[in-house]
């Protein structure tokens, strides 16, 4: 039987790594080793937590910080929903950490990169584990604070501009989140999620009026959708994703976005759905059995549709790889929210479970595939010096392995069996069909067609066709390097095609005849991309194939997570605010207490764990 302490293991590991990465600045090699080992340990911690949650009879592990019982103390809850996304975060953060050691410049790594990177992981972990609304805000801030700096890390004109935009938007988002939290506290008299769900389920027993929850949760939704980059809160996405270093973008698109999705699932499906509020707005009617979800279903559907279509259309027209992937992220987040929206208004519990499970499988697929593509884009930029589609072309000849990896990632986004993306798309369609929502089905189909369009465009322009001048220059330089290495080794083989020294300038000057001269030799330079960077993307590609071929474990995990997200009662029971909740019930719902509350607090602390 696992102890509840395992819940904070990933949190402590990531925090410890961040601190150690600062302390080991005297030797960059030790520092990089610390960072990678820390990411490995984090993966281990998450795996242990995942296993412990699976083995737990309730499938939930609760850790009350300092032994203060809920709802007074800080509660950390690990359930299948949070551990599934933690597993995604652990995998992506490990691969991106290894990738960073090569992709980020050494001085930046020495100064602060690794510490900031792991602090971002700390924020993600905390946000996924916390059982307290205000702590969710704090963990969001931890995550964002690091990501502001990481977005600005290249510190060029474009990076600082994008970081400023990103920071100002998220600072406003934080202020709005604080407002919503204040409103929730005033309405329900508690900040603990389980206690809040409990009070909202029986508002009369606790003397609260649940009606304001609808408006407050709508305000809160803005914050989460801003983090997730959903239309109409998507405008920061392309700039920020272009500006950030490739491994950071992989984390932002692959993991940080999913925290917004997690918050929507956790708060709206587990907590706010408990409130028996009848919604009656123009065009939206819903009885108390659906609660606030009767309102959020149509709203989310509208935003998911807009994201899918605008993101997909925008991606088709982007001049560079990173911009295309950023718009693709906007489109894919629409795909994630679409089944969530269908599930929100579905009355059949089976459909709800499938809908949320579809969103989770899609999140995992998008998290892996998109971080793969961003890291591959970074590897291309590292090798060629540009990600503009007009500069690229013929990458299949010069970087065969990387091209294969990108093909896997792109096909997984498109949804070709046996990759994970196929099952993710299938589940989205399945949700729409089961719920009898032809409109959602149409949107999903249109989004799928758009995905095919932009994936094809990347492939045709960047990977197939004749190599552009920059690709040739890079290939020639690679040949030169290979040649000079051989000469140094005392091997007298002179490479015919590449005249050392002259070739790079020749090709980069864009001579017309350079094309024929070098074209035959491109395959001789085995790969112009950095092997470590390609290896990282390859690991993710293998995982995408493996999860698709052996889809069962992922499906089981996603279904468990969906059931956990929808089962408010079990969540409340696991956190168990029974004694405290009842003791405070007579204190009124206004959030203000009397002298007896202090006595309750003292007695609780006395027999606390």
């Amino acid at each position, binding site marked *: 039987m696992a102890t509840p302490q395992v819940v904070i293991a990933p949190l402590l590991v990531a925090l410890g790594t961040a601190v150690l990465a600062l302390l080991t600045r005297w030797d960059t090699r030790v520092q990089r080793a610390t960072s990678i080992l820390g990411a490995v340990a984090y993966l281990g911690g998450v795996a242990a937590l995942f296993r412990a949650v699976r083995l737990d009879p309730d499938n939930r592990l609760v850790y009350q910080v300092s032994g203060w019982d809920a709802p007074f103390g800080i509660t950390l809850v690990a359930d299948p929903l949070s551990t599934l996304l933690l597993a995604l975060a652990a995998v992506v953060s490990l691969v991106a950490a290894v990738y960073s050691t090569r992709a980020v410049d050494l001085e930046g790594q020495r100064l602060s990169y690794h510490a900031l990177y792991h602090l971002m992981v700390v924020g993600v972990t905390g946000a996924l584990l916390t059982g307290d609304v205000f702590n969710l*805000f704090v963990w969001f801030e931890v995550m964002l*604070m690091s990501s502001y700096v990481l977005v600005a890390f290249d510190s060029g004109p474009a990076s600082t501009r994008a970081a*400023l935009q990103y920071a100002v938007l998220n600072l406003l988002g934080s202020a709005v989140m604080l407002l919503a939290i204040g409103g929730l506290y005033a309405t329900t008299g508690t900040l603990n999620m389980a206690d809040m769900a409990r009070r909202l389920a029986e508002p009369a027993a606790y003397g609260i009026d649940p009606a304001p929850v609808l408006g407050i949760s709508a305000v809160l939704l803005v914050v989460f959708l801003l983090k997730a980059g959903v239309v109409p809160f998507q405008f920061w996405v392309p700039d920020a994703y272009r500006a950030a270093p490739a491994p950071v973008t992989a984390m932002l698109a692959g993991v940080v976005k999913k925290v917004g999705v997690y918050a929507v699932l956790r708060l709206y499906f587990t907590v706010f759905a408990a409130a028996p509020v009848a919604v009656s707005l123009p065009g939206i009617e819903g009885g108390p059995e659906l609660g606030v979800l009767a309102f959020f279903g149509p709203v989310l559907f509208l935003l998911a549709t807009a994201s899918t279509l605008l993101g997909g259309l925008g991606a088709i027209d982007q001049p560079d790889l990173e911009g295309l992937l950023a718009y693709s992220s906007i489109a894919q987040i629409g795909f994630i929210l679409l089944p969530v929206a269908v599930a929100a208004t579905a009355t059949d519990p089976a459909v709800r479970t499938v809908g949320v499970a579809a969103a989770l499988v899609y999140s995992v697929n998008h998290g892996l595939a998109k971080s793969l593509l961003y890291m591959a884009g970074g590897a291309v930029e590292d090798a060629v010096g540009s990600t503009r589609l007009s500069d690229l072309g013929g990458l299949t000849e010069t970087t065969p392995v990387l091209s294969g990896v990108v093909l896997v990632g792109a096909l997984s986004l498109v949804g070709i069996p046996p990759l994970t993306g196929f099952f993710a798309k299938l589940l989205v369609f399945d949700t729409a069909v089961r719920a009898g929502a032809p409109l959602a089905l149409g949107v999903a189909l249109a989004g799928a067609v758009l995905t095919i369009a932009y994936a094809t465009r990347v492939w045709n322009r960047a990977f197939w066709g004749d190599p552009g001048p920059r690709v040739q220059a890079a290939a020639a330089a690679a040949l030169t390097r290979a040649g000079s290495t051989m000469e140094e080794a005392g091997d007298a083989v002179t490479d015919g095609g590449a005249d050392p020294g002259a070739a790079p300038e020749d090709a980069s000057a864009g001579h017309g005849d350079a094309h024929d001269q070098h074209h035959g030799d491109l395959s001789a330079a085995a790969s112009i991309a950095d092997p470590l960077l390609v290896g990282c993307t390859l690991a993710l590609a293998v995982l995408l194939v493996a999860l698709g071929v052996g889809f069962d474990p992922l499906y089981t995990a996603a279904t468990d997570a969906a059931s956990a997200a929808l089962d408010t009662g079990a969540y409340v029971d696991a956190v168990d605010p029974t004694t405290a909740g009842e003791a405070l019930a007579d204190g009124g719902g206004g959030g203000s207490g009397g002298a007896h509350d202090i006595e309750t607090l003292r007695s609780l602390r006395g027999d606390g764990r």
Partner: protein
Amino acid sequence: MAEVTLALALGLLFALGTFLVLRRDVVRVVWGVAIISQAANLYLVTMGFGLTGAPGTDVPFLTGGTEAPYADPLVQALVLTAIVIGFGTTAFALVLTYRVYEENGTIDLSDLASNPFEGPEAAAAEVRAGDTDGTESTVPPTSDETGGEQ
């Protein structure tokens, strides 16, 4: 009375913050964000008062009752946390603003927006074109116009 005063103060702060956020000058935008987060803090404190008019639930310095009523301590703890976070983020935003000024030579949002991202190649070309590269610490040429106006 307390409700009206606080509601007016909150409305005023939010209006001022929103007005500043919509300005073109980045420093004013950062000020606006800071004011909005302070307004959010004030709102949080307000939520702890109860505002029911009943003794024991209103803020002590407004009621001054005989039985020494106290306000909800939880919201004050929340606000303390939020103030600390807000301090850090505001400081970062101001430093970032200075950095944007150093890199782009302007803190006017319209000027910043008119230089859309053109990729590392275009940025490199710009550097080559304006060959008076100098060191990073030199004041950008457009500083007088952008800093002085508004």
